[in-house]
């Protein structure tokens, strides 16, 4: 796991068959990175289906969710369509698991991503991370608490740099 307070490494991955997404394109927004072992595996389906329903809670905190696994962009497309997902799935496919390795979220033995979550702040710094046992769906409460923590620290900063013209 990368340390909180460190800069989130840049990456560029396919988010659908003909488009790539760069992490830096999302600067100014909060980002939730959800590394997961595999499309179609039962626990992952539950986890991604759950996050699909909790997107509105993430949105309240201006956070964009990105799912990441080593599956190919075509596999992601089928999985996403089948589950009616409303957030991008990134293909860490070639070189396999390169981004997961950068984020210390790769299982060398299985050749899959670990079930790791990160919440990045609007400046692209790692605010929170969690490594869930592979067989356990971590739910969304940890992510929400981390996002609320970011809201709180933002409010404190707002008070410190109070602008009377606002």
């Amino acid at each position, binding site marked *: 796991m990368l340390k909180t307070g460190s800069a989130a490494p840049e990456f560029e991955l396919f988010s659908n068959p003909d488009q790539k997404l760069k992490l830096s394109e999302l600067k100014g927004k909060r980002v939730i990175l959800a590394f997961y072992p595999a499309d179609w595996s039962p626990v992952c389906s539950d986890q991604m289906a759950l996050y699909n*329903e909790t997107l509105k*809670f993430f949105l309240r905190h201006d956070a964009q969710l990105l799912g990441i696994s080593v599956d190919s962009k075509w596999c992601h497309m089928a999985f996403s369509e089948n589950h009616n997902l409303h957030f991008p799935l990134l293909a860490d496919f070639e070189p396999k698991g390169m981004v997961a390795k950068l984020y210390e979220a790769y299982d060398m033995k299985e050749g899959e991503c670990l079930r790791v979550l990160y919440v990045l702040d609007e400046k692209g710094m790692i605010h929170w991370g969690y490594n869930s046992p592979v067989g356990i769906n971590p739910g969304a409460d940890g992510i929400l608490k981390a996002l609320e923590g970011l809201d709180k620290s933002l409010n404190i900063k707002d008070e410190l740099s109070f602008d009377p013209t606002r």
Partner: protein
Amino acid sequence: MSSHLTPPVSSRDHVQGNKKAPLTLVEFGDYQCIYCGHAYPIIKQVQQKMGNRLKFVFRNFPLSEAHPDAYNAAVAAEAAALQNKFWEMHDTLYEHQEQLDWEHLFLYAKTSGLDLERFKADIEEESVSARVEADFESGVRSGVNGTPSFFINEEKYDGDWGGHDLFDALNRSEK
């Protein structure tokens, strides 16, 4: 991750059984989820076996993207609650999981003995959908990661619940 029921059980909850029971079982459920359907008779059995020792609470956790009728079914049960028929509707829905479109929901409202005019008005009420959403949010906050999710005495129960497992887990918690 988190394992504590947030917010805790209160008078706003749908409670079945002895309100002063030493054991509380909370289920977060989705009326269209087949696993919840499997859990339904198991919970009935557990309630029967434990009698006064158990209080059962149901909260809504409809996964609307995965189950297109789940949200409406939850709304129908909450509308029934306004006529004090929550549990009748809850049971009917789990006994007819494969038919949860509006036409059938109205039919179940009728067979549950509801005033249909009032039911029709209540399903449009914002307070009813707000109730379903508040339950869902409480689930997300409590670490619910799928359905059914159970809490025993307000702590998340991650063990197996099939066969006698839920009954055994409750018995263990009582001691």
